[in-house]
């Protein structure tokens, strides 16, 4: 199987215990104030979108997960990091 290109997204956000003042501000001062009371919580984070050459979506995901851990793309003391393959 020859390598194909996959789009992989990395989402970094604060751990639930670490307050997220940006998410709180967006929630209270924009969404709630704008009348969208159905929205009960907002967490802000950082998104990295990478194009990755790999043999399968699983390989692409595994590679990105490894680089996130190895290069400290997130700080494990304060962040959770999700990796997902888009295509």
């Amino acid at each position, binding site marked *: 199987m020859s390598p194909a290109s996959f789009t992989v997204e990395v989402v970094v956000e*604060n*751990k639930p*215990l*670490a*307050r997220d*003042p*940006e998410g709180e*501000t967006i929630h209270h001062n924009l969404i709630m104030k704008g009348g969208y009371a159905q929205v009960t919580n907002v967490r802000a984070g950082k998104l990295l979108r990478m194009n990755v050459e790999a043999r399968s979506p699983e390989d692409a995901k595994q590679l990105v997960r490894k680089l996130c851990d190895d*290069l*400290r*793309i997130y*700080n494990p*003391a*304060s*962040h959770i990091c999700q990796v997902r393959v888009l295509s």
Partner: protein
Amino acid sequence: MVKVAIVQFPGSNCDLDALEILQKTIKVPTDLVWHKDLKQDHYDAYVLPGGFSYGDYLRAGAIAATSPSLETVREATDNGKPVLGICNGFQILVEAGILPGAVLRNAGLRFVCKWTRLRIESIKTPFTRIAKMGQTLRIPIAHNEGRYFLDNDQLAELEKNEQVVLRYVDENSTPTADSNPNGSLDNIAAICNIDGNVMGLMPHPERASLPILSPENHPEGRIIFDSMIKTLEGEG
């Protein structure tokens, strides 16, 4: 003769202030060392100065933490030498895993530049050895990411090991919510490693080390540098 290195990263901007205090005021031989040139542990102490290394991209301090110079700093740490991280220097030490925890964006989502009052919580470090427990110091802060964070169980460890060195307090020397400028956990302004030879702090002692720059001409930040040098010279 004691010799200190101030490690410069692209984006450091408090390096010359630290040099002014160490070299011209305290008169201790001090070199400014470009991070790529710091290949061996030849110095007696290291200062990682404030600034915005690598534009604070990804996270403040995260990219500088991967500089090979941090391996030399880690070696110095293991050799028991004093390592002082000020502001961005603190962020770099945390990102390099030399100090525990994380330094997050200020709770108020604004850059905060103001004088703070700090209470000495530990005198086991070379940076506070000549201070008195409970003594307060007025030292300014200037940062956007200064909210110290740690998991609850790790915080208990930090407290148990006497690794909290400075706390933000009010004029009654009490750590209150109002005296906490950035939402730091338990008003923590400075921590050290278990051995106490590495300290990171968000306030800028180099900006409170000359009478003309300090409230009522009391340069209370100098105690951090004086303490470090006296410890190195064996008087601490």
